[in-house]
């Protein structure tokens, strides 16, 4: 027992070292400090737990789901929760629990694809506009304004209507409508640091503008963007669900949560579980991302340190 207790203590001491002895250790010490700060926030830990469960469910869906999500059993349609179908069945007799578990994959795919497309684009545009200023700033920010002038869901609807329904197009439409706020945030952060002495020092060393943006500006703006992405995840899930609900996102029989709610709409008064169960799933996952985002903001926001 003592040996086992000693080793983590040694690792912990190594991770809390005031004077690290390598680049790797310096980075890990910073990470560990952030993790300890995050761990002190119980709500953020709940959010993290929800997201870890979502990840696990998405990864293991085929093995943990009791039924095939597409298997129809018309003899058992609209069974109430309980028994063989813990969350009941829908109008075609498909097991709702299995559909929700498989739907986690779709939700996660949408969220990850949007985040991967949107954050770097917004970050790049915002940092370039903020750092160079002048006409570069004007052009990039007016383009941003154009996209911000439309309500997001309406613009996404227009894009999906033009591109045709489907998950890929829904992701594309959400991505196109979601980047402007990130550009705004990145630009605002860049404006506050571009006049600082450490940027001047980098210029005096002969660093190129792109080198300064990548090496000096982005590391300081990225934390705000990460926080915003996490907080926006909930919104992205809701827009994806909204597009699914309107029949413009995932197409039947795909078990996308929004589409499932749309399918259960007809029975909402008599067979409430058909629409409610996927609704609860959307609600819990959105909550998880929001809680984690709040916690990350406390840890990452340089202004609060």
């Amino acid at each position: 027992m003592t040996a086992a207790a000693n080793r983590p203590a040694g690792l912990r001491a190594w991770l809390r070292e005031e004077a690290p002895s390598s680049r790797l250790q310096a980075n890990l010490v910073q990470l560990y400090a952030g993790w300890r700060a995050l761990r002190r926030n119980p709500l953020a830990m709940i959010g993290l737990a929800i997201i870890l469960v979502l990840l696990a469910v998405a990864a293991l869906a085929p093995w943990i789901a009791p039924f095939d999500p597409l298997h129809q059993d018309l003899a058992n349609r609209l069974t109430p929760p309980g028994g063989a179908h813990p969350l009941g069945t829908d109008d075609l007799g498909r097991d709702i629990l299995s559909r929700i578990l498989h739907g986690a994959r779709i939700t996660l795919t949408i969220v990850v694809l949007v985040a991967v497309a949107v954050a770097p684009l917004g970050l790049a545009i915002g940092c370039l506009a903020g750092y160079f200023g002048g006409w570069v700033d004007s052009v990039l920010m007016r383009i941003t304004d154009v996209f911000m002038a439309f309500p997001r869901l309406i613009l996404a609807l227009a894009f999906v209507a033009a591109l045709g329904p489907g998950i890929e197009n829904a992701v594309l439409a959400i991505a196109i409508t979601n980047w402007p706020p990130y550009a705004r945030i990145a630009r605002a952060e860049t404006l506050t640091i571009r006049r600082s002495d450490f940027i001047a020092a980098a210029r005096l060393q002969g660093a190129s503008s792109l080198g300064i943006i990548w090496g000096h500006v982005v590391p300081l703006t990225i934390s705000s963007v990460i926080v915003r992405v996490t907080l926006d995840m909930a919104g992205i899930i809701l827009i994806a669900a909204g597009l699914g609900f309107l029949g413009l996102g995932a197409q039947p029989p795909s078990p996308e949560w929004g589409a499932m709610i749309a399918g259960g709409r007809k029975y909402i008064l008599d067979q409430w579980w058909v629409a409610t169960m996927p609704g609860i799933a959307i609600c819990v996952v959105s909550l998880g991302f929001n809680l984690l985002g709040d916690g990350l903001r406390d840890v990452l926001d340089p202004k609060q340190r």
Partner: protein
Amino acid sequence: MIEVRDLEVGFGTGNDLIRAVRGVSFRVGEGESFALVGESGSGKSTVLRAISGLNPDWSGAIAVAGEPQGPRRSRAFHKHLQMVFQDPYGSLHPRHTVDRILAEPVAIHRLGEADRRIERALADVGLGQGFRYRYPHQLSGGQRQRVAIARALILEPRVLLLDEPTSALDVSVQAEILNLLRRLRAERGLTFLLVTHNLAVVNQMCERLAVMKGGEIVEEMTAGDLREGRTRHPYTAQLLRASRGYSRAAAAAVLDA
């Protein structure tokens, strides 16, 4: 080493134009240490930023090491001339380790042997190797300023521009940093151009100085003249009195501008 002729720097345009520097000329010889002295807003830091290339909007002539300089500077220029800033809390990137801060100039100029150079730079400014992987927020003001000096010197420049390098530090730390700068200058034959409002610092560090007021140089003198109190311009005399500390007599004699 540094030659400035009829330097004019303005901010804004039209009626809002503020002429921060009005026709400043001076020369700093090789290996010399020259000070620009004056009150806040006298334009002394603006002169420094124009020479360093950080402010490209100026007119007149600036030559460094005999090479006339335009608004854009070459990589060789940056290797040749470095600057230490006033505020050590603002001049180090908050998310970069000391190691990264020092490695970057080596990488930009492709000098190679980064490890050896960083170790040497840290030793030169009196910081142990234990500081190498720390972040600026783990360092005191004096230690940060040492890192900033190490960053400036790791390129082995011949000219160092010093923008009030000690005015943000405690008095006890100020002396350490000034001693460090003096030692490094003696070891490497550096040329210093120092901006300060502190005449005691000038006395310790410089052979010659120019007094600036309202964007113009009102008097150029040697440090010896300054020590003996041989001033020609009334503003210099006033600055000298003020530097001896606050007294009722000195305060009464201040000429309100």
